[in-house]
């Protein structure tokens, strides 16, 4: 069994998540070969073969060109699996490769059970076990689900690959930096975050009062930010800030993977949710099953004493 692992590369840098692909292939028991569309200097420390397409020529992510590079490499290696990280790069490119190969795609794998792939469903409240029916399959793995122990550290053998003339349909113009953070939540010792479960903008003050009583900062989930209830610089998660406070209090937050990615390094997590099955329970040290707008004022009152 062979896996072709597609490296993650963004803005001139190899992303650490690339190593999770190696960990996944090991768990699957597959032999490994990689494709890096990037610079040689950034090649992962992998004791195996890496196909290298130079970023100087192919630039940053371009779906049409990258698809052809993956397909060319797959043609040479005939892998059973072509594996991406489930990221803005992977979820964009994987279905293009799968369609071209008429191969099954399994998205956002979190585990391997007897050679079958486990994926989350229903906002992580359920799991499904999938088996591809096609000979080759395209897979994406959830970021953070497979941790790399450094077993393959070494010097790769590089083989350069190139493409002859092609006109991509999507033209890359440039990057726009993330909004400047007015608040640096990474330094906060206590963060109290509001999710959509607080119900309305007027209720933000109740959550902010708890944050003050704990001498902490106010945080938020993305829908709360998108709705304009709390400013973006307080968003916690994969498209916001990554935080690691001593105490994180999640108020009316379901616990989507993109939110958890931002707060799972917290020392102690308290979640307040009316739903006992909410996935935030997976990372909470204490889950309080209650209406957040009733419970939070009661807690704040005790802390103010």
């Amino acid at each position, binding site marked *: 069994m062979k896996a072709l692992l597609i490296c993650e590369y963004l*803005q001139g840098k190899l992303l650490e998540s690339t190593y999770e692909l190696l960990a996944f292939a090991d768990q699957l028991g597959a032999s490994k070969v990689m494709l890096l569309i990037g610079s040689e200097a950034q090649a992962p420390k992998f004791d195996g073969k890496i196909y290298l397409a130079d970023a100087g020529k192919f630039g940053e*992510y371009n779906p049409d060109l990258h698809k052809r590079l993956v397909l060319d490499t797959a043609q040479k290696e005939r892998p059973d699996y072509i594996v991406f990280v*489930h990221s*803005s790069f992977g*979820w*964009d490119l994987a279905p293009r490769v*799968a*369609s071209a190969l008429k*191969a*099954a*795609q*399994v*998205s*956002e794998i979190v585990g391997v059970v007897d050679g079958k792939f486990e994926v989350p*469903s*229903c*906002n992580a*409240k*359920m*799991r*499904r*076990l*999938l*088996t*591809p*029916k*096609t000979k080759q399959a395209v897979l994406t793995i959830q970021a953070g689900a497979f941790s790399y122990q450094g077993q393959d550290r070494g010097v790769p053998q590089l083989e350069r690959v190139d493409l002859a003339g092609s006109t991509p*349909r*999507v*033209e*890359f*113009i*440039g*990057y*726009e930096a*993330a*909004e400047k953070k007015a608040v640096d939540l990474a330094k906060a*010792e*206590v963060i109290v975050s509001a999710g959509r479960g607080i119900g309305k903008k007027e209720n933000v003050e109740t959550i902010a009062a708890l944050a003050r009583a704990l001498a902490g900062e106010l945080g938020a989930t*993305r829908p709360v930010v998108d709705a304009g209830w709390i400013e973006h610089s307080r968003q916690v998660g994969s*498209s*916001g800030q990554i935080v690691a406070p001593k*105490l994180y209090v999640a108020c009316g937050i*379901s616990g989507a993977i993109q939110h958890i990615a931002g707060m799972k390094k917290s*020392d*102690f997590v308290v979640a307040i949710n009316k739903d*006992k*099955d909410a996935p935030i329970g*997976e990372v*909470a*040290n*204490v*889950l*309080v*099953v*209650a209406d957040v707008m009733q*419970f939070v004022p*009661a*807690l704040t009152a*005790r802390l103010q004493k």
Partner: protein
Amino acid sequence: MKMLVCVKQVPDMESRFKVNSEGVWFEEQDLAFRMNEYDEYAIEQAIRVREQLGGAADITVLSIGPDRVVEAIKKGLAMGGDRGVHIKDEHLYQKDPWQVASVIAAFARDKNFDLVFTGMQSQDRGSAQVGVTVAELLGYACVTTLVGFELSGDIVTARRELEGGIRGIVKLKLPAVVTCQLGLNNPRYPTLPNIMKARQKELLAFPIMDFLTEESAAITERMYPPEKKGRGLVLEGDINETADKLVAILKEKTTVLR
């Protein structure tokens, strides 16, 4: 400008899910369904394009699924879609993303849509495949994870969301498929007069067999709730007692109250 918006109807994610008798999906009875959150942004964006063009545009809202999905189509029409298309399938849950995409592509193939809008992912299945696969099958350009959209002539300038809040800016020519991310715009609420008006709008229905030619590419072996390993303490009951307990725990287990 001809536009197609694909919407999926999904259960409310706050529901309690039970596995169905086949063991491969959840029991749909007793669940409340709504439009996939990401797809609301897709409809809103199509309506904004029509507004930008002074009305010189036509929006088809399509959904595949059992009869209940007509509610999601109607919401799309009440927001501003011109025509609904219901592709009827009592067993949608048995179709994989490859089949769903091939059905949408088969419907769209001879209709020359200039723009196809989908959500970035569905909340129940979450494969993030259908939109891109439709684009590949139709031979359209495609941008995913859309957080910014500008149209000028037949050129789209799109902003894609990347990790950590960085955005990639790309340009592409119509026809195109775009998959919409949360926060792309502010989806409007259907007003009562518009809900009434939507009832008069055209709603076409087709059996899925008119468009389904592909077999599934992957098999769902089973569905199950995640193992509750390493879960913490659960506090329930009287608010005041629970609050007292929580304060005691915070004093004992953390240093923040010292």
